[in-house]
């Protein structure tokens, strides 16, 4: 099998101290591969979002390591890690976090601007990504004028504008009705996923499971099994 896009080993993460201490991740290990659309599912509070944050380099684990494309991300300096996220990872947040004071195209251009592309060039390029998600005609509108599904697509276009190898999607259907959510993830599966890209999705929406390459189940900070795909991570160690 090819080298994994993401390899996590023995991840432990807790919050708080003493009686208030809550363990969110307990010795979690997993691998995700290019060309894969990997779902992490589980009930609320099971540690899905914490795991996604640790894997994407925005939350430091208490122990364990994460290797992305062979680079140990938690050994990087904070600036280096920020650069790494900028160039390798795209985020689609649950609440989109679009900037209401910018136009749709300007929102999509943000990763390009952070990469030091000039403003006009970045906004022009953003139109290409909006075309991919079918929203070119909405480029000059502020996000608040768009529907929830359209905003989600803008968020996807923004994540894609940075041309990331890894796309992280947190509860992509949580704010959408069933049909819209299904069509959005279907769109990602059809148009965004390719053999050079790995997509990690945290969700508990079973209506979109059909697009998953693998589905890992989490409970109480542990990977407990699979819904679909190869063996569980636990099974691998057994």
């Amino acid at each position, binding site marked *: 099998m090819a080298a994994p896009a993401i390899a996590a080993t023995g991840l432990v993460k807790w919050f708080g101290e003493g009686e208030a201490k809550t363990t969110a991740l307990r010795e979690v290990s997993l691998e995700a591969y290019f060309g894969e659309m990997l779902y992490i599912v589980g009930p609320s509070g099971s540690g899905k979002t914490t795991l996604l944050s640790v894997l994407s380099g*925005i939350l430091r684990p208490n122990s364990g390591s994460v290797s992305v494309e062979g680079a140990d991300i938690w050994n990087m300096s904070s600036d280096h890690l*920020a650069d790494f*996220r900028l160039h390798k990872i795209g*985020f689609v947040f649950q609440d989109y976090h679009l900037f209401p*004071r910018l136009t749709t195209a300007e929102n999509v251009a943000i*990763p390009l601007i*952070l990469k030091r592309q000039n403003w006009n060039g970045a906004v022009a390029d953003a139109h290409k990504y909006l075309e991919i998600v079918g929203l070119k005609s909405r480029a000059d509108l502020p996000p608040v004028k768009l529907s929830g599904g359209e905003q989600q697509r803008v968020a996807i276009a923004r994540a894609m504008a940075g041309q990331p190898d890894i796309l992280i999607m947190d509860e992509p259907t949580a704010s959408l009705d069933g049909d819209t959510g299904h069509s959005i993830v279907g769109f990602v599966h059809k148009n965004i996923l390719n053999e050079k890209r790995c997509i990690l999705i945290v969700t508990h929406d079973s209506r979109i499971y059909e697009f998953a390459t693998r589905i890992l189940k989490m409970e109480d900070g542990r990977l407990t099994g699979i819904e679909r795909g190869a063996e569980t991570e636990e099974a691998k160690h057994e």
Partner: protein
Amino acid sequence: MKGILKLAYKLLVNDKAKFTALLVGITFAVFLMIAMTSLFAGVLKRGSATVINLGASMWVMDPAVQTIANTIGMPDYVLDAVRSIPGVRYAVPVYSGGALVKLRDGTYQYATVVGLDDTSLFGRPRLLEGRIEDIYGENAFIVVKDPEFPKLENPRIGTEFEVNDHRGVIVGIAQVTSSGLFGVPTLYTTYERALQYIPNPRFTISYVLVEPKNPADIANIKQQVQALGYLALTKDEFMARISDFYMYQTGMGMNLLIMTVMSFIIGLSISGQTFYTFVLENLEKFGALKAMGAKSRELIIMILFQASFTALTGYGLGIGLCSLTTALAKIRLPDYAALITFWNLQLALVMVVVITAVSSYFGVLKVLRIEPFDIFRG
């Protein structure tokens, strides 16, 4: 970096309500700060009006003199003694005092009378009308055309009036650099005529105006004058002495300082609070930027740029507003003393920089503390 600054700019100015509130806060604070300090600067300049207008390099006076207005007469020998000091190119007496002018309608108007040395007329004003030699004519006076001029019923050449029950006639209309502080008209005449017209105590010389041969002689002249029991000051030193008097001994300085500090506090609270709220409202967005790969220093630059842009725009608007209101006030109130100097502008700029620094400091702290993970948690 330009793109990031433009992003910061758009996030700021596209939030029109907040941006307007920020600008109003800063503009209002700058307006108040400049208005207060410019009023003070104007008052101080007017307090030294005679010193500026006569233009002498050095002034000899009684050591108890604090302002140009509270003259203490010096005996005639002081003039001779000063003239004999090595390094003095020339020294002339000047008289400065007050007189009552009886107007045509029978009312009285107080006026300042400046008596110039009869021989040299040193310190004479620039004439708009008339000839300077006419000052030697019988009962001749030159009137200064300043904001107080109408109080003498807008006299013309040839206008007659009474000065302390003596006949006076206007032979010239003059212009001076600075108007006086106390809102009274100014008349120029010769030193000898001033002594005749104005009741005097035993000693009559208000000041001796001195021109040193060169700047190196100033120290020696001061020393020699001090040995006589009097005080010699350069023009700048005398103006500083007058300013110190108004600033520290009249309460004027403290009152205006309090007003200026209050303006600063108002500006700081309005702008600081609004900017902090602006940052708080955008905190999640800053967190999202951090998650996407923006470095902390880039976010700091964005916040500093937003704060500085707002501050400088408000600063410019505040200066403009203050200049406009000062100009309008001077049309309606010729005595309005406000004078906007570079010092006023610098002080306001420093205060605006402090407001910016304090406002951005708390914003930056908040943004540095936001964890991208919080964005995921929602």
